[in-house]
């Protein structure tokens, strides 16, 4: 009756034959848990849609996001312009669609800068302890003591407005919580047997940290990062709204809300729709983070 090779059985085997099989099995188990979580799945669908829209942007939009057409300015949503047009006659739907790329770019860049920085600072200071630890944690405390948006504002003020500087400013304010988490995880395992065993076998500190400590910090870090992504999107949009993020004519959603502000009374869609896009995307990341926490965080079971 049983087929010769059953992929589910292979994945869920109690006696995995190889490292790869065991690891894939674990991922599959996590996926099964995640799949039964409606909140997390909703978030995953929203985020997957966001990524798909960003990739397919040029094919999804009939108009380009930059072509101005002054006779067609401030048209209400219609068959030709699904979300209407803005004050320069640009198609808002195309701008929203292309704006997904900017949003994703900001989130990815901030995470790529902040998460490894926090991971390295946290795990190194947790692993070695002593003065290094005290100094590093003092610095994280100082950055944490700053209100994040204000600090980002001050940095953008110093560096000048623009997408790259906004990313730097947000990343500078985003890493300390990651350092805290990585440090806490490292402290709990640094005296455990498998670390000592690795050391006795002659592994260098560098090897122990990169091959044994980093993977142990990964799951808590992933949860925190995914929960932070919504906050990153909102901060970036806030900077854009204040005119300090991506500069015109880039279709950044926060800046679009800001430019629609003056027409709000009669042409509500110019400001309303980009804001709704921000809301949906950050909601998606929040839901995804919530679901991931249920899967990856053993304490929440």
């Amino acid at each position, binding site marked *: 009756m049983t087929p010769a090779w059953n992929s589910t059985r292979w994945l869920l085997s109690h006696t995995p034959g190889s490292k790869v099989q065991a690891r894939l099995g674990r991922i599959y188990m996590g996926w099964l848990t995640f799949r039964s979580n409606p909140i997390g799945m909703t978030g995953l669908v929203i985020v997957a849609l966001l990524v798909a829209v960003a990739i397919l942007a040029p094919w999804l939009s009939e108009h380009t996001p930059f072509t101005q057409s002054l006779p067609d300015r401030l048209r209400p949503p219609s068959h030709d312009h699904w979300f209407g047009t803005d004050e320069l006659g640009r198609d808002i739907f195309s701008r929203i669609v292309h704006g997904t790329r900017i949003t994703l770019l900001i989130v990815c860049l901030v995470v790529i800068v902040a998460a490894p920085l926090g991971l390295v600072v946290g795990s190194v200071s947790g692993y070695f302890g002593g003065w290094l630890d005290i100094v590093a944690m*003092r*610095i994280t*405390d*100082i950055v944490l*003591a*700053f*209100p*994040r*948006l*204000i*600090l980002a*504002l*001050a*940095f*953008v*003020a*110093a*560096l*000048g407005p623009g997408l790259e500087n906004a990313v730097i400013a947000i990343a500078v304010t985003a890493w300390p919580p990651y350092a805290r988490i990585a440090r806490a995880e490292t402290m709990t395992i640094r005296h455990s047997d498998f670390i000592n065993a690795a050391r006795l076998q002659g592994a260098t500190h560098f090897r122990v940290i990169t091959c044994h400590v980093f993977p142990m910090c990964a799951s808590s870090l992933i949860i925190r990062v995914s929960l932070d992504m*919504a906050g990153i999107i*909102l901060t970036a*949009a*806030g900077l854009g*709204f*204040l*005119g*300090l993020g991506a500069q015109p004519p880039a279709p950044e959603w*926060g800046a679009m*809300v*800001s430019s629609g*502000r003056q027409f*709000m*009374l009669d042409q*509500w869609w110019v*400001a*309303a729709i*980009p*804001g*709704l896009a*921000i*809301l949906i995307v*950050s*909601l998606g990341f*929040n*839901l995804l983070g*919530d679901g991931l926490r249920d899967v990856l965080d053993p304490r929440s079971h």
Partner: protein
Amino acid sequence: MDGKFSVSRRRAVGAVRTTSRLVFSVVLTFIGLLLVTFLIGRVIPVDPVLTAVGDRATADVYERTRIELGLHLPLYEQFWQYLVKILGGDLGYSVLTANPVTEDIRRVFPATLELATVSAFIGIFLGVPMGVLAAVHRGRWPDHLIRVVSLLGYSVPVFWLGLMGLLLFYAKLDWVAGPGRLDIFLEDLVDPVTGVILVDSALAGNWEVFTSAVRHLALPASILGYFSLAYISRMTRGFMLEQLSKEYVTTARAKGLSEFRVVWRHALGNAMVPLLTVIALTYASLLEGSVLTETVFAWPGLGLYITNSLLTADMNAVLGGTLVVGAVFIGVNLLSDVLYTVFDPRSR
């Protein structure tokens, strides 16, 4: 007698030790804050000497001004001078308003304080009961409803919500007043005793101004209050779930206490200790979170002051404002730590 004395003395010593450690860390953090604002002020691409003398000045004048401003000194000496200046309450002059920044901040801060305080009250008085309800009805519809409300609160851009609120409740329904703190024809009618218009107008007995202030405050305060509600209700839910699973709750129930008393008095009483920290942090973040809200509602507070200065590259004002918000943040953090040690005997 003797034993009791030594216990209380040990407690006092412990309290002093905790407090001195807290004060030490706060001083260090504050110096760090100053260092950051100092460095930001140094890396800006704007040449402070050129701003002072203009680009027509001779090299001689330029050099003299540079020395007058202390910019020829090594960086650590410049930082020391900066420290001394700040501690003396001198934040420099604002280019935009031509006033000392300290004076500007003193003028705009009450507006922010008023908005943040009213919002915090909204957040606490709605958020705490909501969190308790969610914990009591865990997994049923009140819990789900409150989860959705708080998730939306975490996800919605504040500036957009403010604009949509203005569109609906001001422009379409006319329930509340528009941007600003008062109707224009009522401005400057009341002596600014505290700078908080609600208090000032009540003191002066001018109810027309008071009503106008309430109408202007209602929308921005509700919106900021919603954000603190989202956070407070979620945290309250967590703390209450933890308390309700403890044995003293079972004991209280077994003794026949009413469920109302068990939940709202025994469990909430104990959950209040960590909640105080959460509330303090919420209050601090409200002072900060008002940057975008104040911009949307043209609310003449610290946040609007900082953003306006930013857009004109008025660095003294930006860094002064950052410093004040950071200092308030550190202060509130310290306060919440102290409250925690006062109310939770285990942490002593």
